[in-house]
């Protein structure tokens, strides 16, 4: 079930100075961060207080504006925030409860580097240590997702329509819109691949790959049946996750360069580490012009009745067209929706690069990412404690997001504004952000030096 509240806390030092502690959908988490701060600096906080705020974050139909932030760092909180508690020295309510792990905190401090710029949306430590709702997965839905993966494994490959039919029969999707989300998740998790036109899928063979931060643990991807699972070692475990098949892990240390692993007579392909994969990816400009992006002939634009450009979260921009005299496509660079009136076909989304004069198709978020770049947006992300936070509105192209998801085998956690990818080493985050020209902030978590300075 959706967590309806968002929590934040400020450390109020005096009438003029306050330090932001953190933002989270879980109050316990905020409390834990506060506990770490007051324990470390109790002598300097005799006049300070910690103020907890909450806000109702129930889903609404209201559309959020571009560049939406839950609050502004330097401004007073707006009316939607409710003051829940003010806790003064000696902070008993905060210090009661589970003890923290000082060694782990020390370790984290050593690995963090201060950010040269202010982190986006405060510290961006929002979803620390949270798996994507694994305790909220309905068993029947989890079983249906696992059955879907079994069915796809037995089919091997097929068309999009067969996938849609399977999702509908398993009551996982009412229509194509929902089924598209499911197939995207399966691609993210590395279970299957899509053709460049998105009309065919192919299962990956049974594959194992090391976790990014625990390389002795392997994640199982690709084809999976009951018989295959039964033949895996006993040290395997399965983690249910919302909207996707279980994550299955087992322990086995892979030698570098191993390409195949045989377990009880079954052959598993061994994928390289996600770090190697990330390094082998092209940057986003190379991706745009790569053969993986299917190109279309501009003359086919005439077959569509409407072309609309994506501007500020809506299809309100001017159209493009093919100029028969000039033999070129006319219109600004951006993401477009191409629709036909006469035929019952869904609209087609494509990206037009005016400079290169190419129209490409790809995953929706990838095209939106390109459109954002074309519009001059500077994408940002924040990293903290092996979690990478990416704004929902700036979701990465599938090719790059795959690496993030496959680092842990888990889909990202999500809040109204953020996606949280788990188990991401800093090196991986830096590598991918470099490929996408994303500005990476090492988040000012409660234990980060930046936050410490603010607290003092």
């Amino acid at each position, binding site marked *: 079930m959706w967590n309806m509240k968002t929590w934040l806390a400020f450390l109020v030092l005096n009438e003029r100075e306050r330090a932001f502690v953190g933002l989270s959908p879980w109050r316990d988490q905020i409390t834990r961060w506060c506990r770490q701060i007051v324990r470390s600096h109790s002598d300097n906080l005799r006049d300070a207080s910690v103020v907890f705020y909450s806000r109702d974050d129930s889903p609404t139909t209201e559309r959020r504006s571009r560049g939406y932030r839950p609050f502004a760092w330097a401004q007073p909180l707006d009316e939607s925030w409710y003051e829940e508690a003010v806790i003064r020295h000696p902070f008993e309510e905060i210090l009661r409860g589970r003890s923290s792990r000082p060694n782990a905190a020390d370790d984290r401090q050593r690995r963090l580097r201060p950010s040269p710029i202010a982190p986006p949306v405060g510290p961006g430590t929002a979803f620390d240590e949270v798996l994507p709702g694994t305790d909220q997965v309905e068993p029947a839905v989890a079983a249906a997702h696992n059955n879907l993966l079994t069915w796809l494994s037995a089919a091997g490959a097929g068309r999009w329509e067969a996938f849609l039919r399977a999702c509908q029969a398993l009551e996982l999707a009412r229509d194509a819109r929902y089924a598209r989300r499911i197939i995207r998740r399966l691609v993210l998790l590395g279970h299957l691949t899509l053709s460049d036109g998105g009309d065919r899928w192919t299962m990956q063979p049974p594959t194992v790959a090391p976790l990014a931060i625990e390389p002795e643990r392997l994640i199982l991807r690709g084809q999976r049946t009951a*018989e295959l699972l039964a033949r895996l070692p006993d040290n395997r475990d399965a983690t249910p996750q919302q909207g996707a098949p279980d994550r299955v892990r087992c322990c086995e240390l892979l030698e570098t360069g191993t390409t195949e692993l045989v377990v009880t007579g079954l052959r598993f392909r061994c994928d390289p580490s996600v770090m190697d994969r990330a390094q082998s990816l092209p940057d986003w400009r190379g991706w745009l012009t790569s053969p993986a992006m299917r190109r279309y002939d501009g003359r086919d634009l005439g077959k569509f009745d409407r072309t609309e450009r994506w501007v500020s979260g809506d299809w309100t921009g001017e159209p493009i067209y093919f100029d028969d005299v000039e033999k070129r496509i006319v219109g600004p660079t951006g993401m477009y929706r191409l629709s036909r009136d006469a035929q019952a076909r869904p609209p087609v989304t494509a990206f037009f690069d005016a400079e290169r004069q190419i129209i490409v198709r790809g995953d929706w978020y990838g095209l939106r990412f390109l459109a954002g770049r074309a519009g001059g947006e500077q994408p940002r992300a924040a990293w903290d404690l092996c979690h990478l936070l990416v704004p929902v509105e700036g979701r990465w192209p599938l090719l790059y997001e795959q690496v993030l998801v496959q680092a842990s085998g888990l889909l990202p956690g999500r809040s109204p504004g953020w996606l949280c990818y788990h188990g991401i080493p800093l090196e991986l985050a830096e590598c991918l952000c470099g490929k996408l020209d994303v500005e990476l902030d090492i988040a000012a978590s409660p234990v980060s030096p930046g936050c410490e300075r603010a607290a003092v």
Partner: protein
Amino acid sequence: MASVLTDMADGEFTAECARWDAAFIAHFVHPVTRGEPVFLSVHEGMLDRMGHEWGRTSEDFLALVRRRWVRTVQGRRARKQVVVGHHRLRRPSDVQGFVTLLGAMVLAAQWMETELREGTGSQAPLLIDEKNYFKRLRDVLGLELEDEQVRPRGLREYEDAVVWRNWSDWIEEGGWRPTAHPGKGARVHINYPLSQTLLRDGDRSWIARRFWEEVSRGALSRTHDKEMLLGWMLAHRSKFPRSRLWQILDRPEHQLRYEATAAALFDIYSTVDWDADLAEEDEVQPAERPLRRLTAGLYREEDVFCGEVSYSMYLKQPKGGAVGLTVSWMGVEAPLRPERPGWFMPLPLPWKHPPTEGLSMRVVTPDSPIKHVIFPERDFWLLVGDPLAGGAGALASWDVPPAPGQPFVIICRPDLRALLDTLRSLDSLTWDGAPVELARGVWLEYRGCRIPSSPGRVRLRAFTPEEQALIKAIRPQSSGSIRLLGGLPAPDRQAGWMEGCLPRAVLEMPGGFAEVKLLNLQTRQAEPIGRVAANEPIELPHLAPGFYRIEAALEVADRQRSLQQTLSIRSWDSLACAALAQDAN
């Protein structure tokens, strides 16, 4: 020379019997995919091949059945009689111990059907009746005619029919399609073994040689598909004077046997090496022939962006699979990669239309017995929606007829235009817009074709054989059927529906009602579903994995009619990983 089985010690003979039983089941039943028909087609060639493994022949089989199923009964005069012991059939699976008796009956039917093969051949009337059949059965079992009774002693209470019924039940229980059925009139009981006889090794060898001769002299094309080959054989039946062949092909109403024989004929055609010399091939000791050619179908898809239609060749994988085949055509080599169980990925064609004539492409894979891929020269193509996608998506020549109301595409030669117009005027077919000319009018493409749930009556005899072929392809079931719609079909070759994702059943017939029930083929328990109207979808109850039969007793004035449809429910645990293209990435 007497068989070693004649004087074998009892214990040893019992073990020998068990070995033959197991060999029969392993030969005739286990290789058949669930849902497919099982024929107990016993003949000498097959017995020799099967027994060769442990040094036995068809003569040993005769010795076995004569010792096992015949006893000498002492009385005023010692006499031999058949001892079936059918009281030992407590459940259908017990019939596995009776399979050699069934085999003996089929062998007798084979002998009866072939007795007039030589000499006057098919011109002479073939006497197929009980008297003739039991004469042959006496020969097989080593019995003598003792009195005026047609049936030998031991079978006069129709014990043989009891065994056949158990055989059918056991086959059905295992998820296969039984093919042994009683006949009508004088054939009511002898039809059981008769329904099992298919082509023998000798027949296959002889037919292969006939095909080779006709191709060598240019009378038979190398690029026929199954329907065209059958059509050609029907038009040239005098070239195939084999009474047994026409016993089957002239009775398309015996659908399973007819289809199995048609498939066997096309298998023979596809295995003949046209460049070899078959003139001297031994009919008695026929050579084992591997599959030489794959025959392609047609695949049609539309680009979502530009709406452009493209065509590809669509190839079914041969039984047992074929890995690593590469086809060379017009200087381009294309590997055949698996698409889904049973099918290869479509091979795109360089044109915006289907090939205008038959094509033969070379397989360049070294050491592959498959040498060519054939695109047949057809008069029409029927392209239906993907059965795994519920009829949506790309259209192809999948092995399923179009469902009423579901759109499909007909691509045909212009000669068939008048026929399609006629069918439309008879309310048997509709389509969207005007037909599209392809390849400068060599083909006509009819888009958005649909057949109504209650199509108008069409008198087949009023049309030419080519036209009849198209009509039959569009509406193969003229007398009603039970169609299964929706649900989630199993994606592998075993077919069936996945547990928890059952289809709905529809009684496809012009109108009226039927009393419908569901029979569990394992427990034989029937669950009534109720009185159901024609063409109304029926929701099935929750069913555990297993095999079932939907039975509909039709309410037709003055006569009883029934429709049946078997239903296999698959457990999720029964699925295995499909083979993937090696370079899938």
